[in-house]
């Protein structure tokens, strides 16, 4: 009997876990295909005719509400902003971070570890401590509300992430391969470009995808350092939900569109997730 009780308990544990962690996501997807009337019913409807009106409205930027005039939403711009900020941040991070990661992995140099840890410590400093003064600075030098400034500040989270993950990958490559290639008369840059980078490519790819996810999910930087013109979906969606009279289906739809990119990317980097999330501290 003992085994039976265990398996029943286990079964309920599985159900509870699935309900708590996955049901909210499923329900938001569900809501995004509903009309406002269907959502507002006291007893949730399970069977309904899915409508794509919300998605269409979100894309076109206007939605007709019965009894009201046409309503304008600007969510598309938030999506574009998110894309610009995330792609921009990851590109800058790759450019700055990969050579630095290589240096930390390959050379023992004075202050090297200190520099690496200083860079890491930025990730654990309270964001507002740095953003509040930056906010005043940026206003003064006219950088407030610019993609450039935001992408710069995003380096605070993406750079340490990439640095510490990619460093581990470079450390795994034997330096002898590079030496051999250089003995053949190739320059350092050639060996770096043709040997080291291709060998560390899976790590670099996974790290940049994770950086993309972190950049996409960031909220506080753009909330403080940008106006609605350059704010990403995370901030845009909050403005969306606090504005009155926007149909709930449209809000749900906005949320779905905002989380979909990161959810899909997450499936691609499964294998590297553990190492990435722990900044290389744990090898998955």
């Amino acid at each position, binding site marked *: 009997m003992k085994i039976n009780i265990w398996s029943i308990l286990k079964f309920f544990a599985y159900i509870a*876990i699935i309900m*708590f962690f996955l049901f909210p*996501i499923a329900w938001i997807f569900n809501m995004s295909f509903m009309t406002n009337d269907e959502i507002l019913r006291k*007893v949730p409807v399970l069977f309904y005719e899915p409508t794509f009106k919300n998605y269409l409205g979100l894309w076109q930027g206007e939605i007709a509400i019965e009894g009201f005039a046409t309503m304008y939403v600007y969510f598309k711009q938030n999506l574009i902003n998110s894309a610009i900020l995330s792609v921009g941040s990851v590109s800058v991070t790759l450019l700055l971070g990969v050579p630095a990661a290589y*240096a930390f992995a390959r050379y023992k140099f004075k202050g090297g570890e200190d520099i690496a840890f200083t860079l890491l410590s930025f990730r*654990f400093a309270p964001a507002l401590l740095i953003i509040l003064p930056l906010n005043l600075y940026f206003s003064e030098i006219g950088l407030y509300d610019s993609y450039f400034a935001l992408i710069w500040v995003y*380096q605070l989270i993406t750079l340490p992430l990439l640095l510490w993950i990619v460093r581990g990958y470079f450390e795994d490559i034997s330096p002898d391969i590079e030496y051999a290639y250089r003995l053949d008369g190739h320059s350092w840059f050639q060996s770096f470009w043709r040997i080291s980078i291709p060998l560390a490519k899976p790590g670099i790819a996974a790290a940049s995808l994770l950086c993309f996810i972190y950049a996409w999910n960031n909220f506080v930087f753009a909330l403080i350092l940008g106006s609605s013109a350059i704010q990403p979906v995370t901030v845009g969606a909050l403005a969306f939900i606090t504005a009155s009279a926007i149909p709930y289906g449209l809000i749900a739809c906005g949320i779905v569109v905002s989380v979909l990119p990161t959810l899909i990317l*997450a499936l691609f980097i499964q294998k590297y997730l553990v190492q990435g999330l*722990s900044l290389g*501290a744990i090898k998955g």
Partner: protein
Amino acid sequence: MKINRKLFPYVLTLPALLVCVGILIPFFTAVYYSLQRYNLKMPHMKGFIWFDNYVNIFTDPSFWNTIRVSLTYTFFTIIIELLLGLGIALLLAKRTWLNNVLGVLLVLPLMIAPALASLIWRLLINPNFGVVNYVLSFIGLDGFTWASHPDTVLFTLIMVDVWVFTPFIMILLLAGLRSLPRQPFEAAELDGVPEYYKFFRITLPMLFPFILTASLFRLLESIQQFDIIYALSQGGPGESSMVFQVSAYLQTFQYTNIGKAAAMMVVLWAICYFLCHVFVKQWHKLKIKTKGELLQ
């Protein structure tokens, strides 16, 4: 390469460093602000007042409230996430088809922006149509107040935090569990050691480095949590969910009191630095203990 060999690594790290020096400057500015009377609405009053801002916040009951709320939030999120994460990791440890699929799917909440996670839950617990309320009404919890009442708002916030970040603990511990050597378990099996003994004397100690790493990351994030709380309750109702960063945010943008906000953030930074220091020490000890096998 014409560049001096000794200088070369510095050249490679220089661009990354420069970007971050740009970050260090505001850090010191913030510390400097914290020693000033600096209110944007009263620029002529600006001046050096040494530690008056610190004295002020520490004699202010609402700052003690902030500390209390922050620590409560941190304590409960970490404890619940650790227990739940460990439980799920143990449940999924065996490599079966179902466990592998669930291991992938359960990471999804972690990949959602915390601010958006708050919005998802806001739609789910909406007093008018929230589906969670509907489900709860079957077990007599009709009209649970969630974020709209001071007594339940922290519970709601902790629940969202648990929803987002338990997968973080789960995935790290699952990786840990699956990488443990088999021999000790086989030996225990041969000796007929009872299950609970195996768990407390073999599994847990071997898993400890993973638990420590996961807790460190969570601890530092949890005490600084802003996104979830700002998107769900903005510190309210009243000051019942006022944590450090939300408090500093309001102090800056509602009361324009830069000096006070900076002082609060410096206090938070000091707490984080202290926690980090304690943990890194433990981490190094463990690294030596495991001879760099588990932790790199």
